[in-house]
């Protein structure tokens, strides 16, 4: 269901997803930035469901190539509250393909007005195995050695974690600037670990052309994000931590689809050399209305 690195397996799944979305999705579109790790203060529009796959492709030093996908179901409960479920999986060459767990996260905007800097509170519960390789955040002393263990060994480690983020985000002159401060705690024993993510993004054209087009510049957004670990409560440090910088490109496709691409580059010896990311999102407008008639009663 999640990731099949071999082309012959990936293609039927991808085309099924695209086909379903083309049939079901009305002409809506997401407003999100092409970030993979960083969060801005954009929340899902209330009643909308976004289905997105975020895939990371990499090869840890001395280990096999892998592809890991997080399938994200994001629903706008309120204009100030978005909830998301992630289902993670990965496949490692010369090893195996497996489901690695789930995450449930909620994002809240505590301030109802738009400010120069807009805070968002993020709370996540994560139930994954040690074989999870999606790299949706980097905290503590996370490094490429964590991604190099054979799946049979890594999957025996269970992680029940709570994660808190303070998201600060600004929209200034069509630029989005976002900063995330991350604190993660294994609910069993490990200490709090910390990390960060920052991102900047800008549309290639500010004004709409007024045409139905796919390749217009206003359909593209470019940016860059950087993220990494900051140690833990025992040692708040950047020593032996991983850090990445990643250019971003987002392309708003017809029928509420969005494609995001990002090559990421490791900056320290603990980091992966490169992480290639691909995101494909489908937005389903007002799915709450599918179950209610126009006069408010259930169908």
């Amino acid at each position, binding site marked *: 269901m999640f990731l099949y690195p071999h082309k012959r397996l990936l293609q039927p799944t991808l085309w099924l997803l695209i086909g379903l979305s083309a049939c079901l999705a009305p002409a809506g579109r997401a407003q999100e930035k092409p970030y993979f790790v960083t969060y801005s203060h954009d929340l899902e529009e209330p009643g909308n469901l976004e289905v997105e796959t975020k895939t990371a492709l990499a090869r840890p030093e001395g280990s096999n190539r892998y592809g890991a996908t997080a399938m994200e179901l994001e629903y706008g409960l309120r*204009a100030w509250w978005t909830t998301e479920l992630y289902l993670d999986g990965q496949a490692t060459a010369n090893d195996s393909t497996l489901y690695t767990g789930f995450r449930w996260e909620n994002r809240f905007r505590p301030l109802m007005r738009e400010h120069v800097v807009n805070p968002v509170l993020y709370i996540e519960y994560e139930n994954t195995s040690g074989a999870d390789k999606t790299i949706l955040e980097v905290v503590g002393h996370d490094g490429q050695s964590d991604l190099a263990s054979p799946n049979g060994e890594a999957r025996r480690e269970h992680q029940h974690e709570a994660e808190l983020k303070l998201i600060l985000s600004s929209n200034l002159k069509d630029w989005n600037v976002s900063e995330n401060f991350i604190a993660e705690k294994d609910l069993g024993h490990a200490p709090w670990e910390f990390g960060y993510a920052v991102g900047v993004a800008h549309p290639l054209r500010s*004004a*709409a052309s007024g045409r139905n087009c796919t390749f217009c510049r206003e359909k593209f957004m470019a940016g860059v994000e950087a993220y990494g670990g900051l140690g833990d409560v025992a040692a708040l440090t950047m020593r032996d931590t991983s850090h990445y910088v990643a250019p971003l490109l987002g392309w708003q496709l017809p029928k509420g689809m969005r494609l995001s691409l990002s090559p990421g580059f490791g900056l320290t010896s603990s980091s992966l050399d490169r992480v290639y990311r691909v995101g494909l999102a489908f937005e389903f407008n007002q799915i709450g209305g599918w179950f209610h008639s126009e006069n408010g009663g259930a169908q």
Partner: protein
Amino acid sequence: MSRRILAVLSLALGVTLTVFAATSSRWTQIPAKEHLRTNPLGGQPEAAAAGAQVYREHCLQCHKADARGDGRKRPSLRSERLQSASDGDIEWFLRQGDLGRGMPSWSSLPEMQRWQVVAYLRSIQ
């Protein structure tokens, strides 16, 4: 210990959200300087046409193709409120949203696209 911290944080979050969710109508909060702003694209028919395109992509799902809303939670945009509002009022409202009442903030839209939507909304009154 960590569970206690999480419980306290959850409680604090709940109280914060309850307090901030109860806000008065956005239209009464528009600053005077925002009210006085004029649409830099005003009087340009192509701006209204482009605004119609932006409307279809972002606003139609709630306010419907005829901009009359659903008669319940999604208000009509062909209203006396809109007719009497200045360009600056409408652009400010789009940028701010009304999160407590379900209207998202569209600050993530480029400013020119917000003004194009204002031009479109003016053209349909």
